[in-house]
């Protein structure tokens, strides 16, 4: 007997049925879980911003966020205002942290003005300006929250990535890498220069804070270059705003 599963009609019907069942299943799962996922992402943003300005629960060697339960309250406490910069317009908006940087980058490419969110936080009498930025690593997106003072000297930074290689590029979110950025000047003699993730800068302990360089991670050249490029191109956009702070 010819096997009934070999018939073309059966094959097509099976394919259609399979697509419908699996599609419905995935759509149901995605929409059912969406509120939870969105909430997790929102809290993560608050945690990231707080981390960059030094509000975290770091132990000796590991990067730890404040707990998700405390995040909203601490965010209220430490973040004084949230700004949206568009050209020379600066407006306050307490939902600015929900701005999707990726979408804004696409808008900028399409010629629609880009909104730049900036968070102003205060801790122990020091003022922090925290910018969310986004770039490309080796495999996928990388992003960062960079806390600066009004002279664009980095006060703290949080990097993260979507899918960099475990053990290599993925280490950009480890403290040994992120902490190197603290104190680095984004400018050089008053001119914006960014910070390069440099190989062989003969400064592995990162003692020189004015060389616009931090030590790279071995085996993660492309991710490191992505970090350099992201810092340079994205933070440059914020430079005009920092100029206005001088007056």
């Amino acid at each position, binding site marked *: 007997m010819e096997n009934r599963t070999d018939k073309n009609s059966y094959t097509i019907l099976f394919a259609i049925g399979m697509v419908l069942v699996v599609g419905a299943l995935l759509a149901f799962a995605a929409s059912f879980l969406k509120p939870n996922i969105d909430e997790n992402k929102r809290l*993560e943003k608050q945690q990231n911003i707080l981390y960059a300005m030094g509000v975290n629960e770091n132990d000796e060697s590991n990067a730890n966020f404040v707990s998700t339960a405390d995040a909203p309250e601490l965010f209220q406490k430490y973040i004084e205002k949230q700004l949206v910069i568009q050209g020379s317009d600066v407006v306050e908006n307490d939902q600015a942290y929900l701005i999707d940087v990726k979408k804004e980058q696409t808008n900028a490419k399409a010629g629609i003005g880009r909104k730049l969110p900036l968070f102003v936080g205060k801790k122990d009498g020091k003022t922090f300006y925290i910018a969310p930025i986004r770039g490309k690593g080796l495999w996928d997106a990388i992003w960062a929250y960079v806390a600066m003072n009004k002279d664009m000297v980095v006060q703290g930074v949080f990097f993260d990535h979507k899918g960099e290689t475990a053990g290599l590029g993925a280490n950009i979110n480890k403290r040994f890498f992120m902490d190197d950025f603290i104190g680095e000047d984004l400018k050089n003699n008053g001119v914006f220069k960014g910070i390069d993730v440099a190989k062989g800068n003969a400064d592995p302990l990162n003692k020189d804070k004015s060389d616009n360089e931090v030590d790279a991670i071995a085996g993660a050249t492309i991710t490191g270059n992505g970090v350099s490029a992201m810092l340079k191109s994205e933070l440059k956009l914020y430079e005009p705003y920092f100029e206005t702070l001088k007056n």
Partner: protein
Amino acid sequence: MGLLSKKDAKLITDPLADNNPITIQVLGICSALAITAELKASLVMAISVLFVLGIGNVVISLMRNIIPSKIRIIVQLIVVAALVIIVDLVLKAFAYELSKTLSVFVGLIITNCIIMGRFEAFALGNGPWKSFLDGIGNAVGYGVILIIVGFFRELLGSGTLFGIPVLGDPIAKTGFYAIGYENNGFMIMPPMALIVVGIIIWVQRTRNKALIED
């Protein structure tokens, strides 16, 4: 193994050594090279594959009599992709921290040839219980190699295990580093994973001559 018949037990124990998916069947090599620079990543990948292969094998086995043979590969692909996506969504909703660690493996699991390899070679021709055991056995066999490779690469490449320094501090020159030991940066590159896997294959075949092909 009182619970399992001798034949069933063999399904679990065989892939651990004499029919190991990586060293003998040469399945799942790509991910073995990609993610073994750290022990933690190896362990997470091993557990993820255990889960997907165990359940996937059962699903495919249950469907084995209704899957049209002409499109069976695509059907297998859809089953594994759907499984992985659902797991990823659930983790994102209820264990967000964990999902961030896992997200990089999601793509790797779908393309992992060990999964399709076992669906095709075993689950399509055997019952669900046997397929489940085969899935678990192969995933554990795969995981064991991953963990061995990850152990040596992280220890020799970074001087740490699970991110904890075990040989001292390479910059402050304490522990082993005080007597002139250096991390071998080459160990964290993928080619060294291939060499470590090669050494495991060599050791295994030296101990069991029956595995040597002509």
